[in-house]
């Protein structure tokens, strides 16, 4: 059953301190008389729209030793998320209505966060022929975002077709921008450090060339493009110019690309191996600037769990990817708030409402508008903490381990219920 809550003395994104009332799962303007509420002292906490992650690898079906929908949901709730988007590179690949519906159902069963499947653009992520995008869009999973993430839709004709085709369903193609021929054996950012370490370079142009091409195809087709995990200053500039020209593009940046740089590869510890790779300080600065000025729309985690044996190896043998659901907020706070360069309204937009709009999730990103489902995240901006490798994710490939973090999610309210309360995960009500 859904409780009634009075969140007392909470700070909202404008800075105003007030009470927030939830009744029967919905936000209301004022507590109804005759209704009993659990009163919670929320002084010092900031309430934000429940976070929406556009880019989560949940690994189920197929790779349940790394993560399941249930374990990923727990990690997401602890990170303040009320909705996550499950990437399609599972086994089987989420390229049919059957698989996306299965993933959505697993999400409902876990019940801690709304799990919105992303559908593959091409059959088996192979980049050869379009998957049944219409069937996925019209399925119970109501897919709007299509992505071959992990692979780039590098064939320009196929990318053009995909962009054209999804227009019928108000869909969007989310591109993992990586020109494959320019990144053969790529292991880290191309440059002096890669040369010194003897690791194959991942040149920035391999990302930027695909983005430039896709922006032109998007303009040509009048469709909608989303650029996954933008990692270079040049990509930010391309997207900035495209937006100025009115091209319908959105872009995401990961917490790790906002915080970490390629120097971390120096010790050959594969916990820092990720695709696209960690870049230079200048790139990090450009990404932050793009996030603040609106060029980049969302922070998306690209949470990519891997079992220990995939990282406890030499660099080249190790898998690409990092976990990130539980540290994303702290990174966002550091970049937007603690830097003094932005504000909580922008933070709410990049962590929640922009992603909800891109994916067309009606129940998410609504914040405090009366009558909407209560999907809220309460954070303590003053709490400083040290992330541990172990999180609620099943995997420990956590590159934020050992860093001092400021600001932490305290409670998460999903559909009017606490999924995470006082730093503890809640079991689903009734289960």
């Amino acid at each position, binding site marked *: 059953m859904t409780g009634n809550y009075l969140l007392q003395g909470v700070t909202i994104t404008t800075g105003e301190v007030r009470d927030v009332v939830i009744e029967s799962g919905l936000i209301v303007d004022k507590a109804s008389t005759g209704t009993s509420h659990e009163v919670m002292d929320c002084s010092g906490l900031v309430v934000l729209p429940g976070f929406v992650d556009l880019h989560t690898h949940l690994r189920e079906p197929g790779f349940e030793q790394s993560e399941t929908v249930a374990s990923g949901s727990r990690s997401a709730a602890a990170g303040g998320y009320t909705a996550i988007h499950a990437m399609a590179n599972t086994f089987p690949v989420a390229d049919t209505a059957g698989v996306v519906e299965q993933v959505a159902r697993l999400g409902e069963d876990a019940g801690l966060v709304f799990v919105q499947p992303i559908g593959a653009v091409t059959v088996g992520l192979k980049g050869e022929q379009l998957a049944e995008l219409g069937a996925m869009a019209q399925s119970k999973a109501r897919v709007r975002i299509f992505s071959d993430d992990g692979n780039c839709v590098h064939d320009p004709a196929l990318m053009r077709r995909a962009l054209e085709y999804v227009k019928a369903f108000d869909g969007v193609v989310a591109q993992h921008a990586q020109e494959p021929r320019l990144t*053969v054996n790529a*292991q880290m950012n191309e*440059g*002096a450090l890669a*040369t*010194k*370490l*003897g*690791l194959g*370079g991942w040149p920035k142009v391999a990302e930027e060339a695909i983005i430039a091409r896709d922006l032109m195809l998007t303009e040509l087709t009048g469709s909608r493009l989303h650029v996954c995990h933008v990692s270079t200053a040049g990509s930010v500039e391309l997207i900035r110019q495209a937006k100025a020209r009115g091209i319908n593009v959105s872009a995401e940046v990961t917490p790790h690309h906002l915080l970490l740089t390629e120097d971390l590869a120096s*010790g*050959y*510890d594969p916990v820092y191996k990720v695709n696209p790779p960690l870049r230079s300080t200048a790139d990090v600065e450009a990404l932050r600037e793009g996030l603040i000025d609106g060029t980049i729309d969302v922070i998306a985690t690209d949470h990519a769990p891997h079992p220990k*044996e995939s990282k*406890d*190896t*030499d*660099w*080249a*043998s*190790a898998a690409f990817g990092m976990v990130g659901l539980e540290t994303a907020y702290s990174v966002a706070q550091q970049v937007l708030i603690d830097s003094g360069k932005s504000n909580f309204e922008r933070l709410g937009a990049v962590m929640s409402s922009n992603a909800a709009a891109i994916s067309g999730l009606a129940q998410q990103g609504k914040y405090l508008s009366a009558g909407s489902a209560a999907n809220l995240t309460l954070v303590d901006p003053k709490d400083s903490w040290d992330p541990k490798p172990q999180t609620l994710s099943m995997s420990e490939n956590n590159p934020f381990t050992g860093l001092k973090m400021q600001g932490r999610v305290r409670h998460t309210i999903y559909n009017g219920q606490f999924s995470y309360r006082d730093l503890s995960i809640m079991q689903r009500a009734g289960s």
Partner: protein
Amino acid sequence: MRHLLSAADLDKDQAIKLLDLAEDMSDVNDREIKKLPTLRGKTVVNLFFEDSTRTRISFELAAKRLSADVINFAAKGSSVSKGESLKDTAQTLEAMGADVIVLRHSSSGSAHRLAHTDWVGSAIVNAGDGSHEHPTQALLDAMTIRQGAIKHPRGKDLTGIKVLIVGDLSHSRVARSNLILLTTLGAEVHVCGPATLAPASLVSSGRVHFLLDDAIKLVNPDVVMMLRVQQERMSDSFFPTEREYARIWGLNKSRLARIGENTQILHPGPMNRGLEIDAASADSKNSMVLNQVRNGVAVRMAVLLTLLSGEAS
């Protein structure tokens, strides 16, 4: 010195000490009984994930001349995934009593990783990791250059000596380690190769030449070090044909005539005769190739001795 992972692990004094110790070891190798009892009871494991008979034999001989026990473990072609077998194999060998693991692996940083994880506690010698480094090769090259250029080499560095390294600078671990070590020792190091195989960060250092004829004229090197050309570079379009490579970057009779009379020619072996070096150059009196092989044993003795006896630490 706990491990030898990179030429950068050595400062100038350490490098000179190692080279001097290698000279002592070289004297042992010239004796009737080429054996010292120093490392009796110690175990040296050659853990080779990549074929390299020459390097393996050189380490093996070095260890045996110091009376250590030697285990050779060729892990190439194992069905286990590369990474898993690095950790597991190293742990297995350590459990058998390895004091030193000499590692050759196709993955850059693997020796560093073995030394910096809690996988094993043995001393690690990097015998070539991917396209990263091959520090004992650089030491044997430095020893060869020093002997060839300086009459009484003990205690000396390489100040004033001009070295030209020619070939695939992007992928060569020999080039990387030599660039570091020879520079540490005071040599003036220039490099030359196709622009496709010269990383931008190197080019910006200013001592890169794209054409061998220009390089010979401009640098007037005391040492020319030819790198081995890997076949796959051609198929990946780094250069068009063997013929063109040989024509522009190969050391041949005509270029041999243009380098100084006393210029040393080095090659890490095995040579592709007719590609990066022709027979006339390979067999000329300038060729130091066999000295390099001889010095390889001495240098590796010095390294094992230093790691296991705590000398020169």
